[in-house]
């Protein structure tokens, strides 16, 4: 190898390392300014009905007592803290972050997750500069709507098939994670196709990168969620009878 070859080899290794380490940490959110304005508006408009629906559902839940409101706020904060938690990662030396939507969906239902997820994303943008204000609609649609709803569907299906609780919780978190990334890839592909790169090619490109990094991540989050859920269920007997109904 001559000097130039060595250097280009090094550069390519650095670039691939960079993609592998940088992408998983931030991949769940589309950064500020990434999406053209028309796509920001479209995804915002698509998210709005879910938000309104979730808002009414929360309002109904809160009407009875203030205790529920407090609990919902606490669980929103919990989702934020969970998503900032470092998760041991299989692929790279760096740690990655769970989305935390799987657990929230099972405990509080997908409708309230739409609102809580939106607030969590807003605070992530304002306090951590993850995601952004203009991409809030797109991020909320993939993380607070698409992932939770599909994950919840899978969870109900697994329960109906009489799968063990561990398995159905794992599947819910795993599928919610994967679907979130699939929708994010779709959002990016819709914005970044052109005459040279067709929609399917762009989608394949983003999905390829996500698949490389996110499938192991989704498996880890699935295992983690199942473990956490088991721990909560075992503690709930004496600590919080109100939640026992959910964990059954």
């Amino acid at each position, binding site marked *: 190898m001559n000097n130039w070859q060595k250097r280009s080899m090094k550069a390519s290794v650095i*670039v691939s390392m*960079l*993609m592998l380490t940088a992408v998983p*940490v931030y991949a769940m959110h589309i*950064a*500020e*300014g*990434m999406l*053209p*304005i028309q796509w*920001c508006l479209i995804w915002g408009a698509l998210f709005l009905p879910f938000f309104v629906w979730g*808002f009414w559902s*929360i309002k109904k839940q809160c009407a009875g007592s*203030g*205790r529920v*409101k*407090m*609990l*919902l*706020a*606490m*669980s*929103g*904060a*919990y989702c*934020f*803290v969970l998503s900032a*938690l*470092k*998760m*041991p990662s*299989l692929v790279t030396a760096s740690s990655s972050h769970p989305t935390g939507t799987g657990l929230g969906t099972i405990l509080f239902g997908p409708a309230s997750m739409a609102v*809580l997820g939106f*607030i969590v994303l807003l*605070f992530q*943008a*304002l*306090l*951590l*500069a993850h995601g*952004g*204000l*203009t991409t809030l609609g797109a991020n909320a649609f993939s993380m607070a709507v698409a992932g939770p709803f599909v994950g919840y569907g899978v969870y109900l299906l697994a329960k109906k098939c009489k799968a063990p609780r561990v398995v159905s919780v794992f599947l819910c978190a795993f599928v919610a994670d994967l679907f979130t990334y699939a929708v994010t890839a779709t959002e990016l592909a819709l914005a*970044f196709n*052109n005459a*040279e*790169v067709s929609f399917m*090619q762009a989608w394949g*490109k983003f999905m390829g*990168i996500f698949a490389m990094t996110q499938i192991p991540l989704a498996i*880890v989050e699935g*295992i*983690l969620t199942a*473990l*956490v859920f088991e*721990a*909560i269920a075992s*503690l709930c007997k004496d*600590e*919080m009878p109100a939640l026992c109904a959910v964990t059954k």
Partner: protein
Amino acid sequence: MTTVDRIAYTSKLKDMSPAIKAGLAVSTLLGVLVASQNVFSVAVFALMTALCTAGSGLPLRQYRKMCAIPFWFLLAGAAVVAVGFSEAPAGLWHVRIFGVYLVVTLDSLRRALELFLRSMAGVSCLYFLCVTTPVNDLLGLLNRMHAPKLLTELMMMIYRFIFLLAGLAGQMAVAQKARLGNAGYRASLRSVSMLASSVFVCAFQKSAAIYDAMESRGYDGNFDFTGELSRSTGRQRLIFAAYEVLLIGAVVAVKWIAG
């Protein structure tokens, strides 16, 4: 997280009207997206850097450190956008994978650069809002804009609880580390799940305790915000209006020159 919050509370522009600061950041952000031109993006990035450092009093080193994270991430994102597919070798650079060529053309490189600069400019606008405006002021602003009361209340409480739970999680993580909870992959997976479930139980108990404490002090299901939001002065409003006119003019001019 705590650092951004601290920076916002110690900013020199903290007592400026949040409406003006939010208006400035959001309108510039929209301008960047609508214009989507490199010159404009660079100019906005420079302006926001000046406002964050000289205007708000953030040390340049800290600002550079804050910008480094999105810089590398956006570079990776732009690199992905720059790569296209082709049946035959073409463009500036190509490599054969699975029977197709991955190519980088001059056109795609230009698009990637545009995306990168636009995103960096957008991030700088967001940073301006983050480092000058405490979240409480923004929530007060939302309240004044007649956002649904339940929503602002939830946000208020979530904001407060985030720091509570993050502190708890931080303490637990230190305790686990001190007891070799992260020795090996299995142990660290177990530790993280234990931490997450313990934080959840604590959150559940705390929410009940906080409700009891508030109810015993006359909480009737409504939060009333009493804090005064700082109002804008006439001069600030004039400067803001002039800036908006300038911004719209610049966007139109840049669009017109680009065709």
